[in-house]
Each structure stands twice: as C-alpha cells, then as structure tokens.
C-alpha cells in the first residue's frame, strides 16, 4: 500500500515538474543615464613640418627653446631662420601650428588673440606681422577651425647685452 502511494506521489511530482509553463524565467531592470553637455573650444600648439620642434607639442602649453644663439656665426636649431639686419638687430624665426577646435556649438570661425605675459622693452616679439605686447592683439578674427601655421619671430637689437631671454605668449581663441 505504501509503495503504491509512493509511486503515485512520484508521478504527481513529475507531472508538476513537466507541467511548468515553457516561458523562460527572466528579470528586468533599468539604468537611467543623464548628461548635460556644454560648448567648448580647444586650443593646442603643434610642431609645424617646417618649424622647430615644440616642447609639449599637441598640448595647450608648449615651449620653444632656441638654445644658445648669437648674431654672427654659431648655429641655430633645425628649421629656425636667423636674419641679421645690418648693424641694428638680428632675429630668429620659426613657424608653429595653432590648432583650434570647437565642440557642441554652432560656430563658423574663431577669433585668436595673443599677448606677452611680461613686458619686454628690449626685444621685439611677433607672430606673423603682428608685434606682441602685454595687451592682447588680434591675430585673426575669422580663423578657420583646424590647424593654422603662424610664424614666430624674436628680434634682438645689437645693443642688447648678451643674456637669457624668456617670455610666454598667452593665446585666447574665442568661437564666433
């Protein structure tokens, strides 16, 4: 009798197992994602193919080192041009690239300004045809996004005493 009952129970259990609906066991969940984007402009300096190798090329804080140079004789780094202007002054010039990019803003061009960080009453610092001072000068008001080469020129008068020269050019690019 007990064996018979046991068999019945096992049969019922099997039916119960087999009879479970075929629908798959599942679970659902959600992850809500939010972000607020704002417009931004990137300004970086890159070594020009015909220019001196920049320290920190590809960044927004590059450096140019001419090394030890002299008006007559000596040597200058690769891709640096030395020009002697009579007995008045001499200059070192080299191009480098200014790369400006814009993101998440409708802008067809940009304005680029530059200024010397520290006043220099002795030497002349220029970008292209623009002489620099501590007051920001506009290099272009219609800059095309991407890479643009600018020629940097440092002019030293013969009357200046030999010594170390250093300064920083501060650039600002503003999307128009």
């Amino acid at each position, binding site marked *: 009798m*007990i064996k018979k*009952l*046991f068999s019945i*129970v096992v049969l*019922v*259990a099997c039916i*119960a*197992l087999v009879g*479970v*609906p075929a*629908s*798959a*066991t*599942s*679970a*659902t*969940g*959600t*992850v*809500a*994602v*939010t*972000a*607020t*984007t*704002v*417009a*931004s*402009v*990137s300004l970086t300096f890159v070594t020009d193919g015909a220019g001196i190798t920049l320290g920190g090329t590809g960044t927004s804080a590059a450096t140019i080192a001419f090394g030890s140079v002299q008006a007559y004789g000596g040597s200058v780094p690769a891709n640096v041009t030395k020009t002697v202007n009579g007995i008045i002054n001499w200059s070192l010039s080299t191009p480098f690239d200014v790369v400006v*990019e*814009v*993101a*998440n*803003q*409708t802008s067809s061009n940009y304005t680029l300004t530059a200024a010397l960080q520290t006043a220099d009453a002795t030497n002349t610092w220029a970008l292209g045809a623009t002489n620099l001072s501590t007051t920001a000068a506009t290099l272009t008001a219609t800059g095309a996004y991407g890479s643009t080469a600018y020629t940097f020129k440092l002019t030293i008068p013969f009357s200046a005493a030999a010594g170390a020269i250093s300064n920083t050019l501060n650039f600002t690019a503003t999307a128009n």
Partner: protein
Amino acid sequence: MRRSWLVLIALLFWSRPASAQVTLTIAFVSDPSGITLSGSGTSSASLSFGTVQAFGGTVPSGVTKSVAGNSWTLSTPFDVLVQKGALDVIDLLSTSYTLTARLQAADIQDTWKFNSVVLSTTAATITATGIYGSTTSYGFSLTVPFSASAAAISNTINFTAVAN
C-alpha cells in the same frame, strides 16, 4: 509519517508558481572603478555624468573622457548582478543566463555602448553565459559628436536577464 512527508513533497512541487519569473532578480551596482550609481543595488539605478564638455572641464570620479577627431566619449564601468531563487527546483537546473540591453528611446545623434555593444531600441545580447550571483563589471560609454548642440542628454537602458 512517511506518507505525510511524501504528500508534502508532492505539494511542494505542485505549488510551484505557474509563472517562474519572480525567481530571477537583477541589480545594478556601482563598480569600485566607476561612477557612483544612484540606486546602486537595485534594479532601477541611475547614472548622472553631470555637466560635461569636450575640451576642459571636469568629469565625475570614475569617469574617463576621451576626445577623438570629431567626437568625445564618456566611459565608466558599472556592475550587474543577476541572482536566482535558491529554493526553486527549476531554477536550480539553470546554470547561466542571457543578458540583453536596449535603449528605451532612439538616439540618432549619440552613440551608446554597453560592453562594447552599440545599443539601439532593439535588444542586443550582452552575454549569453552570465554567471548567477557573480557581480560582473561592464563598460558603459556615451559618445557625443562635436556637431551636436550643447544640451541635456538622457535615456534609459532596459536590461533583461533570461535563465538559460
């Protein structure tokens, strides 16, 4: 006595829910290397990147920003934990699960990826061999093109875990 036990066992099998869906659970957990999820540990979490920009600015801790030629990407990992009912006979027979994900709303501008899988409103398989009870880290990324206007971005990722 033995008869009573046998009847009880039979009832246990028989009383198994007609729908077994309540026996599988999914939870989203903040990854130690990722952004802190709101609602971490639940099945309804949220992830907020806050105010962000392609150039400059800051991103939340655990978030990586990368800038490509014409787009920028925010990425962070978060964990998924799928568990099954320990006392459920049928579920004990399942040794793995399949995890799918889809976007709740279509986004033709930005690119949403989960575990390197590009998401759309059609469910995509994230894994077909998920391990129960194992907190698994997945990379999530949101790519925004430069050409997109600055704006609030929001969407929901719907996940489904199905027992194999």
